[in-house]
């Protein structure tokens, strides 16, 4: 027992302390968090906008008179559907490679490229989550808003979205956690994220167990921490109604 513990300690020192190799982990963690944060931000913005395009089109297509407005809405809706189909129909690793080697060739800022790709990817899933949230709100809420004199956008902003957001928070949290772990493929474009950092240590020390388990543990702790945080937020939002 003591023997095993001593070996573990030795392995720890060898993998992380010697040559300050722990920096691969901390720098990688920082990159992972940055990419996840910016991707989530972009994903939510895309999600809200595209969800509004999709649900407003579904709601108004029968009522709108033919004209510029309707043509524009139809075009936007088609574009939105194309986006959802393509993004959800291809692997995120492939999207990442295309983003790096085809679309953003001129930039060497891999954090930026990864954030964009994961944001655009996540946006597609968040769109469907938010659209589901909007559809879950009783149509009477929408009519009440419009009957007071609010425009479509104002009704969405003051009445529908705040309620929908509360309903979709668990799914959104799920997407956020999935996103955090998905960013582990950043290494494909040479970005030194948490996973890549652990892997680099493995390459230097030729010992796989310690760095990889450490990386896994850090992901696990992050997910547990964020789940707890979101649970708190959820309870606070719910309590305001009682």
């Amino acid at each position: 027992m003591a023997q095993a513990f001593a070996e573990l300690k030795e392995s720890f020192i060898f993998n992380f302390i010697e040559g300050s190799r722990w920096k691969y982990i901390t720098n990688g963690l920082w990159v992972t968090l940055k990419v996840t944060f910016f991707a989530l931000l972009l994903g939510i913005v895309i999600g809200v906008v595209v969800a509004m395009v999709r649900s407003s089109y579904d709601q108004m297509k029968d009522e709108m008179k033919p004209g510029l407005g309707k043509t524009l809405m139809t075009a936007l809706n088609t574009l939105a559907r194309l986006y959802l189909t393509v993004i959800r129909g291809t692997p995120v690793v492939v999207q990442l490679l295309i983003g790096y080697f085809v679309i953003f060739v001129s930039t060497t800022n891999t954090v930026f490229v990864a954030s964009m790709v994961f944001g655009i990817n996540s946006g597609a899933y968040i769109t469907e989550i938010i659209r589901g949230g909007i559809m879950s709100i009783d149509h009477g809420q929408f009519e009440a808003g419009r009957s007071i004199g609010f425009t479509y956008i104002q009704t969405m902003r003051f009445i529908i979205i705040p309620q929908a957001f509360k309903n979709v928070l668990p799914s959104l949290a799920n997407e956020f956690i999935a996103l955090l772990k998905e960013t582990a493929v950043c290494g494909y474009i040479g970005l030194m994220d948490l996973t890549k950092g652990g892997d680099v240590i493995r390459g230097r020390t030729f010992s796989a167990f310690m760095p990889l388990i450490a990386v896994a543990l850090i992901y696990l702790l992050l997910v547990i921490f964020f789940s707890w945080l979101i649970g708190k937020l959820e309870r606070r939002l719910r309590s305001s109604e009682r």
Partner: protein
Amino acid sequence: MSADIIISVKDLEKHFNAGAVHALNGVSVDIERSEVLVVIGPSGSGKSTFLRCLNLLERPTGGKVIFEGTDITAPRTNINLCRRRMGMVFQHFNLFPHMTVLKNLTLGPTELLKKSQAEANQKAMQLLERVGLADRADAYPSQLSGGQKQRIAIVRALCMEPDVMLFDEPTSALDPEMVGEVLDVMKELAKVGMTMVVVTHEMGFAREVADRVLFMDEGVIVEQGTPEEIFDHPQSDRLKSFLSKVL
């Protein structure tokens, strides 16, 4: 056009499902300022559709609605501006559950009428006082009874200082013992001269408060007149058979 006509409805038609269902088949009526117009009829007669066409929650497929001299069915009309002057009360209240009562009441006035929050609060509290719910200003809708919710919903519409109030079966979703408190508020409103269009099954209310009663069936106005004419001297067979079922 006479000056005191507030809403003029001309040949209103509404077809659903590409003409398969005819909810309204040419309804024409002039509503005078301060008039209380009660619309009755069997379910599926088009009375709710008629009401919802007045503020374009339902877009008519034919005919015109002229509100205070503006043809609101014209494509260029800004319906949002017109709706500010037309309060609406729904069967299912439709209060905003994520806001307190006071916020429900002041959202429209502050965002649309650009009143200060203090000014809007003052007006809201004044109206809450009148319906006896001033102590519930900080409650959330889920904490209220059905009758309270509907009274709040009426106040929410009144906070926009509308010229006309539309009621879509305001007591149909209420427990029987709560119907009275909502009708009392509506009677009060009629007394102070509010123009009201009320779709309801409350024949007692119609008889007592209405200036004019419309009986609708199958998307047309079958009969209209004073409450006495409609309830005591019905002419058409359809009205007679309807009354025999509901009275």
